[in-house]
């Protein structure tokens, strides 16, 4: 199945992260896997995935964590024809086929949330439970105001303040980064622009498809998130029939990076919750 794979093992705390490359639709897709258990497909945000990120360990302790680098991110190639999260959702449906996975838990962060919503709306049966972390992808507010601030029309310092609760601790330390790390960071940014430029950070069709996602869904944001507002998160969650929202304190747009233990506890509790009743009781009313 993955015969063009060159595994690389890295120990991350107690979790071993295996890196492979898998060819999907002509794309060389960088794929990380860690842990054992029910499969969880993790769709990273605009800053990409790094196997040293702290949330990997608690998730890998309970799940088979599967993290592709989106096309054009990390070391995944970017074909000429690909220019939208919708395109990537199709790639990941094929990835699930190739990995022989019928249904997975799905976590999507920021633009990864957008891809997750596209994927789940196309094939609702393949998503067991859905966690959306600071997700983008729909337009819920008025036409004369951006739902998501234009992160490309501001300084990096101003952007850091929107991205993080504690920018001084979280923002990348350029001076300490290698040439390869810088190249990946800047290429990620370029691909993010390609995918999100117009319409800005959303697919106008997506909101008319989300009602198909019957799986229990948890929409999470950090309470200091300056990109995804509480109103936006609520408005997005209301488009799904079985979604609720939650907030993580002392975290910004990436609570899984800024508060990895608190985020893992919240998300894993939701994913492990076998009863539909508990979810329904707390579910946001549409």
């Amino acid at each position: 199945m993955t015969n063009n794979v060159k595994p690389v093992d890295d120990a991350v705390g107690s979790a071993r992260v295996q890196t492979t490359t898998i060819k999907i639709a002509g794309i060389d897709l960088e794929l990380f896997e860690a842990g054992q258990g029910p499969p969880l497909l993790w769709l990273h945000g605009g800053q990409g995935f790094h196997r040293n990120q702290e949330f990997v360990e608690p998730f890998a302790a309970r799940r088979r964590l599967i993290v592709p680098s989106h096309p054009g991110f990390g070391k995944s190639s970017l074909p000429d024809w690909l220019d939208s999260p919708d395109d990537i959702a199709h790639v990941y449906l094929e990835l699930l086929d190739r990995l022989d996975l019928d249904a997975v838990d799905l976590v999507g962060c920021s633009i990864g949330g957008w891809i997750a919503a596209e994927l789940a709306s196309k094939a609702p049966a393949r998503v067991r439970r859905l966690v959306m972390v600071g997700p983008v992808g729909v337009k819920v507010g008025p036409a004369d105001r951006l739902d998501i601030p234009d992160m490309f029309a501001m300084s990096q310092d101003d952007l850091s303040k929107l991205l993080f609760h504690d920018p001084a601790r979280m923002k990348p330390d350029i001076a300490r980064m290698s040439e390869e790390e810088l190249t990946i960071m800047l290429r990620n940014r370029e691909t993010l622009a390609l995918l999100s430029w117009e319409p800005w950070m959303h697919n106008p069709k997506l909101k008319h498809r989300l009602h198909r996602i019957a799986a229990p869904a948890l929409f999470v944001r950090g309470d200091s998130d300056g990109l995804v507002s509480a109103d936006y998160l609520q408005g997005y969650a209301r488009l799904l029939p079985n979604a609720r929202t939650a907030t993580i304190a002392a975290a910004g747009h990436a609570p899984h990076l800024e508060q990895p233990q608190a985020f893992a506890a919240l998300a894993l509790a939701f994913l492990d919750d076998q009863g539909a009743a508990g979810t329904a009781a707390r579910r946001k009313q549409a």
Partner: protein
Amino acid sequence: MRAWHFSETAYPYLPPADSYPSIRVSLPNRIYDPHKGAALYDRYIDEWLIAEDEGVEIMLNEHHQTATCVDPAAPLMLAALARLSKKARLLILGNPIANRRQPVRVAEEMAMIDVLSHGRLEAGFVRGVPYEILPANSNPVRMNERHWEALDLIVKAWTHRDGPFSHEGRFFHHRAINIWPRPYQQPHPPVWVSTTSPGGAAQVGAHGYVQATFLTGFDATRKVYDGYRRGWREAGRGHDVPIDRLAYAALVYVAQSEREAHAGAEKLLWYITSNKVPPHFANPPGYVPVAANVQILRGAENPLSAFGKRASVEGAIEAGIMFAGTPDQVMAQIKKHYDYVGGFGHLLIMGQAGFLEHEETVVGIRTFAREVYPRLKELYPDTLMSGVAAGATAAAS
């Protein structure tokens, strides 16, 4: 050698620069007074027509949401000039086709101006500076690919005579293209493309279009021209590249005395010093390659923005982005530049900027046209080839 008077039709009446973060994209248009703007249009058009009277050709360009160039629909200005002028060639440099949604509409606009002017159009196409991205809401990624698909489609629309044809490309889709009018010039108006990279220039050279480069000084200009000459030769166009395929844009001010010339040149520097733009407008993701952005993060600086911080007339002349002084001095400066870069056949003269007043602008145009231009035409006839050894042109003088 052919000279062109180029004006950005700037609106210079601005509050102190420290009161706004950017002169482009976000500067509120309440600052723009339409009455003053109307008077400025009158004046700048007069200056183009004076240049025409002096035998100099006309050039304009297009920018958006900026006080530096209040010409957001250059084809409109060009249409006016097509009727007001009588003999000058009319160069638009250019149409930002990577930011225009309908290349076929651009083909129509250009064909119409060519007919209105009885065949005087020189049709330029530019990728557009990075600050054009946001006003156009245009994706900065894959701009170059869009640019070339659009340009090829425009040329096809101009030259296709037999009723509708279709185009189903990567970026643009049309089922029935059949433009009226078709261009006056046959098979189509001369095509110009501006670029500042050697790789881009090689692509322009392969097509045989006129290559223009702006304020790139000595070394960068030579690299761009080398790229063009390489692309030209590799495409099988022969070894010799006529100088009329290459153009250079500089700030130019000529007057009888050095003191008067430098006073005018000082005002032209507004073109560079006023260009206050924050990095997030000046470098959107995807506009330059990832590798170049890595270097920028590592501290590399754009040479032109570095220059802007310590701009002086002497420094600008030294850098090869300005030709200013008495007629003799300007001749010597142009000759030095010409020899260094391997020769070019078009001098694009940024002859007005900021607070260079009408009378001063006219002095610059007339002194150049009467005392420099005839000597340039004699020294650099259009029959010369570019890229031959510097000694060949030195001997000609």
